[in-house]
Every structure is written in C-alpha cells, then in structure tokens.
C-alpha cells in the first residue's frame, strides 16, 4: 500500500518547536508551555491542568491538522493515534509520590498513567479510532511504521497521528506526524520517518 503518506510533521527538542521543519516557537523550557499558550492564543483552560508529558505531546501535535491541506470529513472513529514514550509518566509519578507526604493530590494522581497523554490528544483532536501507547527505550520508527501501516491495510483508520514524546529529567523531546491515504505527501516509510526525525531534531 504505497498511497499512505505523511502529510505533516512536528517536533520538539531543546526548547524549539518545529512544524514541517520550520521553527514555530523557541523559548526557555521552564516557561515554554505557558508561552505557547499565550503566543498561540489558546483557549483551552484544561491545558494548565495537564502533566508535562501531556503538555509536550499537546503542543507538538497542535498544528498537525492545521498544516494538513486535505479537506474531506473523516469520522472520529477512523482517526487513530499510535503513541510511544520511554519514561511515560515518571515525572508525574515522582511529583505525586512527593504529594503523598502530606495530602495526595487527586489532580496529579489522574496523570499517573503513561497513556493519559494519548487521551489528552484524543480529546483535543477528536480521535476515537484505534489508540495505543507503547514504551520503548527510544523512538522506534520501524515498529511505529509497521503498526500504523497495518492499521491502514486493515482499514481501521483513515488518518492517524503517530509519534513519540518523552518528558523526564534531561530528556524532553517529541516527534509526531500525521499519516493519511493520499497521493500527495511523503511516503510513509521507516527511512523517511528517520530522515524527518534527524532533520527535525537537528538544531
């Protein structure tokens, strides 16, 4: 199936958010998320309640559909999301653990699952199709490509966000791309995804 294409992609590394390889926003990591909210004039109060992994995935994916030129209406049940991460919600786990020294925080507790970030993306983009979260030591383009390709072959999705986000310690990075059936765009292959990743994460 060679008409499965990447129609847009976005990345985050070292305080730089890029969409289709172009810098969208650069800011200090400590204030990046609130700066993004302000600069992009978001009206999404729940953003501030999210944990860092969800915020990272959110800002990286936020413009994927805007950059996608196709205009056909796709059912939410045909919109998928294949998400992977290394450390999942460890950043939040530690904060929650600290909160248990006094009164455990319910708001932190609800983010102590690595797939909550996928849930936040699904809410934001109206994705009700196949969703999966995987844990890998690092982004695995080969696995991700095969998995997403199989979803298209089995006609389980018409459009799919695929990608990676990690937020823990020194590791703050994300890379997402939008895959759809199309005659235009970048052919969905491991090699092409690796190239986009290398290009995106290179400063």
């Amino acid at each position, binding site marked *: 199936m060679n008409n499965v294409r990447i129609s847009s992609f976005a990345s985050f590394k070292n305080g730089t958010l890029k969409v289709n390889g172009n810098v969208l926003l650069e800011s200090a990591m400590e204030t990046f998320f609130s700066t993004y909210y302000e600069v992009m004039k978001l009206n999404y109060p729940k953003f*501030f309640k999210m944990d860092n992994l969800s915020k990272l995935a959110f800002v990286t994916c936020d413009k994927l559909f805007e950059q996608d030129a196709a205009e056909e209406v796709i059912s939410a049940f045909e919109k998928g999301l294949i998400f992977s991460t290394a450390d999942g919600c460890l950043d939040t786990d530690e904060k929650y653990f600290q909160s248990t020294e006094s009164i455990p925080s*319910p708001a932190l507790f609800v983010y102590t699952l690595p797939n909550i970030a996928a849930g936040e993306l699904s809410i934001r983009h109206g994705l009700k199709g196949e969703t999966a979260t995987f844990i890998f030591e690092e982004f695995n383009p080969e696995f991700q490509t095969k998995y997403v390709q199989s979803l298209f072959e089995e006609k389980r999705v018409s459009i799919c966000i695929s990608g990676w986000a990690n937020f823990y310690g020194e590791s703050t990075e994300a890379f997402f791309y939008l895959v759809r059936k199309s005659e235009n765009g970048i052919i969905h292959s491991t090699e092409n995804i690796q190239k986009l990743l290398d290009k995106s994460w290179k400063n």
Partner: protein
Amino acid sequence: MEELIATLKTQIVEQLNLQHLKAEEIGTDQPLFGEGLGLDSIDALELIVLLQQKYGIKLADPTEGPKVFQTVRSMAEYISSHKAA
C-alpha cells in the same frame, strides 16, 4: 470575610492550576461548577484537599460538598463557621 474571600480566590487559582485566570476575575457569587467557572470532579477533590491543607477542615459529610462548593462566598462562609466552631 472579604479578606478571606480574596485569599480563597488566590488559593483556588493556585491549587486548581487555573493559570488562564486572575484571582480577581473569579466572581464571589459565581458558580464554581457547571456554567460558572466550569470546574470538574477532579477540581472538587482538589477543593476538599485545599480545605484540609490550608484551613485544617475535613469535609466529613460528602453530601455537604455541593452546598459548600457552590461559590467562593459559600466556601468562605463554611470556613468561617467551622474555624470558629
């Protein structure tokens, strides 16, 4: 009471991560849930934590919640009456 109300608004913004709002933008009699401030069930739990952490008040009867957390004013009145007790 007015001082407590102002303090409560600041604490609500901090505890519930309402960074899109300034404390003074919260109406004293504005409903906290539903079409008012739009808080959700997790926020309700955080308000219970706030009462306990900042004022040492445990909401012993969960059915009191909807009445206590109706507005900032109802919260302030509950705190005043229970701190005095």
